[in-house]
């Protein structure tokens, strides 16, 4: 009874926040509603027993996307000379058909899931049976690396492509319009960073290691690490440069290249592509992917080609 009530509350909150986010009077309120929507979505994932998804949703969906929207909003206000932009009043003619179509699609899928009284779940069963051979305890990491290795490899490639595309369309406008505060900074920022940055790195490494046997993995760890980077960029500890230095390039390419090299290696011994030779290869790929995901997300956030440590007097 109590849990049903809680689930109902989450569903109502989700729908309400979604409507608020797209129909709000001001862009700023829309952004805030979107962030809260992401956090509520994370709660919903946690409620239906998917902690991996909940963590990714909270870190990427609410945290990083929210911060990205805030920066976009700030730049919009700066471009309009301090005039706060309002969303256009008239709605697209396609809005209602798309909404009805999406609703029908979700309804049909949900109905299908409800009607099939016992989903076969053969792939999941197969994974759970095979995992002990590899010493893996987390079925999701198992699926991502052992069974859907090509999908995961392509996901990293998509992230890399997204960064290239963002760099290609990035304006050459003056780079001083960053998300930095113009006031002299307070000592509190330094204290915050001194505590939060080491803690964030600790959490990221824990998530990476935990990914092999419980909730966690490269994507969550990368997102957490990226959050630390965003904090460093926002507080001016790290500044943007138009082009990447060797270290940043290495970071961006590490995941993709490590995955490709380890994946190609089995061909030399006449085995199938992407057959992972053991636990060490999983740790290697996951670590490289974490670094790449973090660096790519920071670069996307900062709208920068590269990053440089700011020397402070």
């Amino acid at each position, binding site marked *: 009874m109590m849990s049903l009530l809680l689930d109902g509350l989450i569903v109502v909150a989700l729908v309400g926040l979604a409507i608020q986010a797209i129909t709000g009077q001001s862009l700023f*309120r829309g952004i805030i509603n979107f962030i809260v929507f992401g956090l509520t979505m994370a709660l919903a994932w946690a409620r239906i027993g998917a902690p991996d998804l909940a963590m990714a949703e909270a870190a990427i969906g609410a945290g990083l996307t929210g911060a990205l929207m805030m920066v976009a909003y700030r730049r919009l206000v700066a471009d309009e000379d301090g005039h706060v932009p309002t969303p256009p009043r008239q709605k697209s003619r396609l809005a209602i058909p798309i909404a009805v179509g999406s609703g029908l699609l979700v309804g049909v899928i949900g109905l299908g899931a409800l009607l099939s009284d016992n989903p076969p779940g053969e792939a999941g069963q197969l994974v759970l049976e095979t995992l002990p051979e590899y010493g893996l305890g987390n079925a999701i990491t198992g699926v991502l690396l052992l069974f859907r290795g090509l999908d995961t490899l392509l996901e990293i490639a998509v992230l890399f492509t997204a960064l290239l595309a963002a760099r290609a369309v990035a304006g050459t406008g003056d780079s001083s319009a960053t998300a930095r505060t113009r*006031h002299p900074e*307070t000592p*509190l*920022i330094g*204290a*915050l960073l001194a*505590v*939060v940055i080491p*803690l964030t790195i600790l959490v990221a490494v824990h998530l990476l290691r935990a990914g092999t046997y419980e909730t966690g993995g490269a994507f969550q760890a990368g997102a957490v690490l990226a959050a630390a980077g965003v904090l460093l960029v926002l507080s001016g500890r790290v500044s943007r440069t138009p082009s990447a230095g060797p270290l940043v390039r290495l970071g961006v390419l590490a995941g993709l290249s490590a995955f490709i090299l380890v994946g190609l290696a089995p061909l030399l011994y006449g085995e199938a592509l992407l057959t992972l030779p053991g636990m060490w290869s999983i740790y290697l790929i996951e670590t490289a992917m974490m670094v790449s995901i973090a660096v790519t997300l920071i670069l996307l956030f900062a709208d920068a080609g590269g990053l440089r440590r700011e020397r402070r007097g």
Partner: protein
Amino acid sequence: MSLQDALALIFLLAGCAFYLAGTVGLLRFPDVFCRLHALTKADNVGLGLVCVGLAILNGQPRVASMLLLIWLVGLLAATVSAHLIARHAHEREAPQDQELPRR
């Protein structure tokens, strides 16, 4: 209901009461500084009481120490962000009503 459960319930309810009071203050108070004042009560005491309640409910020292860490990090984040917001509002010298959406 054991003594442990009852104690945890008291702490959790007290924490929720602080959150409720903080939220009401956030919605009803006139300017930025008053609103921050209301929020800090919810953030600091409310979160602390909820963490204490959960630690009692769970009973393991390991979980209790993690909850303590969560509370400390929450305190730090709330303090710094409240300070930054207050500073910004102070520098704009416009803590007036029209700067904020009224409910």
